[in-house]
């Protein structure tokens, strides 16, 4: 090819961001796209949180007071869909966008235009999903798991919800492919796999989980669509299909999805704890192998969500033991985090507070998970608030706290300004107190038999439900502190140094704060 044309198109890479609003629409810059993902997740966090507050307001007292039951059901359904697909996943992708190229010493993501599309699908996909709330017959109300035949019996929303899932799935698969290609192809010379920060490792494995299971979800909901609109009988026993088959296919996606929502969190915590303990991470290699083991095991435990639906005894035993096996690599991780802190010179800045909060409360959620893994016990706990308490303990002080920790940890690098430490700490303590007021009582009412996803309940559950609702509003409104701290940090504040944190290690702390628009156009030297 003629080099003349090549030179003409070749860009010098020293330009900054384009002026005007269209910068954000057309951008191919990993930092811009990371910011867009994070802001999108923040907006959706308040939408999903608003839905949670409607649920908790209705449950403040027994009886039906505020919303009608159908709307209540669509709130539980939408709250889950929004929080999983609209908050935790995009927030992690946003962090991956911002941090992975900097952590591996690459110039940008491997496929920048695809990266732009992965983000710009999200607002449109959620417009499709949220539009169902304004349709005749309301939004989806059969639970986020969309179990057939219940989901097939709802209103017109089903087709919209299914296409919204396809739509988000396209974004997730493209985003994951991009991350895999970036990690394998964009590392600076000398950045061997076993030198990569754990956040990069955990995201690599998460990306594989996504590529493997999102298409399975797409297949499952496609079968729902054809069962509803094209006469097929995948999930109808009359036609030789089986409604339980939907659950198997769904949870074959759904269980790895659980780890999609937590593995990047493990990577974040593994970055933060060494910094504030001022010691290298204990057992780096074992962390990598533990992450890979968790990912592998996540494919063979799905039916522990289905112990009560009917399964051969051998199946129940297999899924029980396979599930309990996950506690081994997870235990390795918790042990390593604690060992990292052992005799460290610890300080407790906000990211570290959130990391330690993660460690303690995620472990509570992990232990209640072990209780749920025991088949005979689960037959008691199934579909009670105990399950709700369990997964909220792993998702809120787990996934969400890790995202908060990551934001406080890296925001000085993003904005060039230190955040307000005092208000950050207040945010942590207020959130942590209210969070436990909100979710801990759910263990009690759950063990006592309160069913989940029902707008009304028996009188004996009234006190703890009132307490939980107070916690919910406290937790929800205390997130406004987070918005305030982030806003203030973007606007200004004490200038951040290049290292930002005294004990921090990694390539992202070798570039100035704020990180230049283009970092590592020439690969850095790796020790």
């Amino acid at each position, binding site marked *: 090819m003629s080099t003349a044309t090549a030179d003409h198109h070749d860009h010098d890479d020293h330009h900054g961001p384009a002026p005007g609003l269209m910068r954000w629409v057309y951008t191919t810059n990993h930092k811009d796209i990371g910011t867009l993902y994070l802001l999108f997740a923040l907006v959706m966090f308040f939408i999903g949180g608003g839905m949670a507050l409607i649920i908790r307001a209705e449950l403040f007292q027994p009886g039906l007071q505020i919303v009608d039951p159908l709307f209540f059901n669509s709130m539980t359904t939408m709250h889950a869909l929004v929080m999983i697909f609209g908050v935790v996943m995009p927030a992690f992708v946003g962090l991956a966008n911002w941090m992975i190229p900097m952590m591996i010493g690459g110039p940008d993501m491997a496929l920048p*235009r695809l990266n732009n599309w992965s983000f*710009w699908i999200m607002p449109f996909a959620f417009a499709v999903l949220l539009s169902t709330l304004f349709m005749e017959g309301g939004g989806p109300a059969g639970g986020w798991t969309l179990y057939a035949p219940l989901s097939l019996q709802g209103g017109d929303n089903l087709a919209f919800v299914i296409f919204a899932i396809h739509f988000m799935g396209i974004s997730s698969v493209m985003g994951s492919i991009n991350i895999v290609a970036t990690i394998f192809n964009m590392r600076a010379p000398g950045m061997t796999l076993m030198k990569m920060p754990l956040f990069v490792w955990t995201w690599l494995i998460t990306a594989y989980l996504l590529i493997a299971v999102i*298409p399975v979800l797409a297949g499952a909901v496609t079968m729902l669509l054809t069962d509803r609109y094209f006469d097929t009988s995948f999930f109808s026993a009359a036609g*030789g299909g089986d409604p339980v088959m939907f659950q198997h296919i769904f949870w074959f996606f759904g269980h790895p999805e659980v780890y999609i929502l937590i593995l990047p969190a493990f990577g974040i915590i593994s970055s933060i704890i060494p910094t504030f303990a001022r010691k290298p991470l204990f057992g780096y290699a074992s962390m990598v192998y533990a992450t890979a083991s968790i990912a592998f095991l996540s494919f063979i435990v799905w039916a522990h969500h289905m112990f009560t639906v009917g399964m051969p005894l051998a199946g129940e035993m297999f899924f029980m033991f396979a599930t309990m096996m996950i506690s081994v690599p997870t235990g390795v991780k918790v042990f390593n985090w604690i060992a990292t802190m052992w005799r460290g010179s610890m300080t407790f800045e906000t990211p570290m507070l959130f990391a330690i909060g993660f460690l303690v409360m995620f472990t509570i959620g992990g232990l209640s998970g072990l209780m749920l893994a025991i088949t005979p016990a689960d037959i008691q706990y199934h579909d009670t608030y105990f399950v709700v308490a369990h997964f909220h303990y792993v998702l809120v002080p787990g996934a969400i706290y890790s995202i908060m920790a990551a934001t406080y940890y890296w925001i000085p690098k993003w904005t060039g300004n230190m955040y307000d430490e005092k208000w950050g700490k207040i945010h942590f303590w207020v959130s942590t107190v209210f969070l436990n007021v909100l979710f801990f009582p759910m263990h009690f009412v759950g063990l006592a038999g309160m069913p989940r996803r029902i707008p009304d309940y028996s009188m004996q559950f009234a006190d703890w439900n009132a307490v939980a609702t107070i916690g919910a509003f406290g937790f929800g409104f205390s997130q406004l502190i987070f918005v305030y701290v982030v806003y203030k940090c973007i606007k200004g504040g004490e200038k951040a140094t290049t290292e930002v944190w005294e004990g921090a290690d990694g390539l992202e702390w070798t570039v100035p704060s704020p990180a230049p628009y283009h970092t590592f156009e020439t690969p850095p030297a790796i020790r």
Partner: protein
Amino acid sequence: MSSPSSYYIPHEAKWPIVGSIALFVFFMGFASFLNGGGWIAMALGAALLIYMMVMWFGDVIRESESGMYSKQVDVSFRMAMMWFIFSEVMFFAAFFGALFYARQFSGPWLSGAGEGGAAATNAVLWSGWDYAWPNNGPAELGGEYNKMSWFPLPIMNTMILLASGVTVTIAHHAIKEDNRQKMVKWLLATVALGFLFVACQAFEYYEAYAHLNLKMGTGIYGSTFFMLTGFHGFHVTMGAIILLFVMLRGRKGHFSATNHFAFEAAAWYWHFVDVVWLGLFIFVYIL
């Protein structure tokens, strides 16, 4: 081909937002159509999506032909295509899984086999129903029907696809020897075989609906048959269109012995639909 030293990062991407709007219009339109609305929005969305792809791919082709992509960029493309195909494999795995589950578990359970409540379910709900494959369920949804035989159309289609795998490989060797004319010729054969396959498949569907009373609504057999072969047929159509464009680009003088990733990606995709078909032929038609 000289390779630029730095990794190519485009300044801005104009087409993704168009793609998002197109998909939004398409999905909203399709969902409305399924609920009894018109088809115009759906068609508009699809048209806009195709326009977006033409323009986006056009940009990429121009950049590639002017030598802006380094070896490293090429590796990114290869990885992306590889893992995209893997995601497609997982998509088909969901439908194969449904087929195996219906045949190994839910069918026998419905007829009373297995532990637990299966015998009672059979006795109370579907008394006297015996499992056999194929079946349209204990309620015999869709009425009397005939099974789709593996002979003659499906075995012919197997031969056609296997032959197309050979022709595409010959074309690949041709471009590696810089023999453009030979490449175009054998690609033409591949595309023709691809569309011949789709035509045979369409005729098979016609046969199923017109003479065998085999429909989407023919219980689990009809469901798995049409969904598996239908999604496969859709992928063959896509693959043939992709190969057609690769051929047209070849005629225009694109590709060289060392730089023809679009060709290779299309060939990978073609082999993928080929392998899926072999799975289909064994598990849907023969066994």
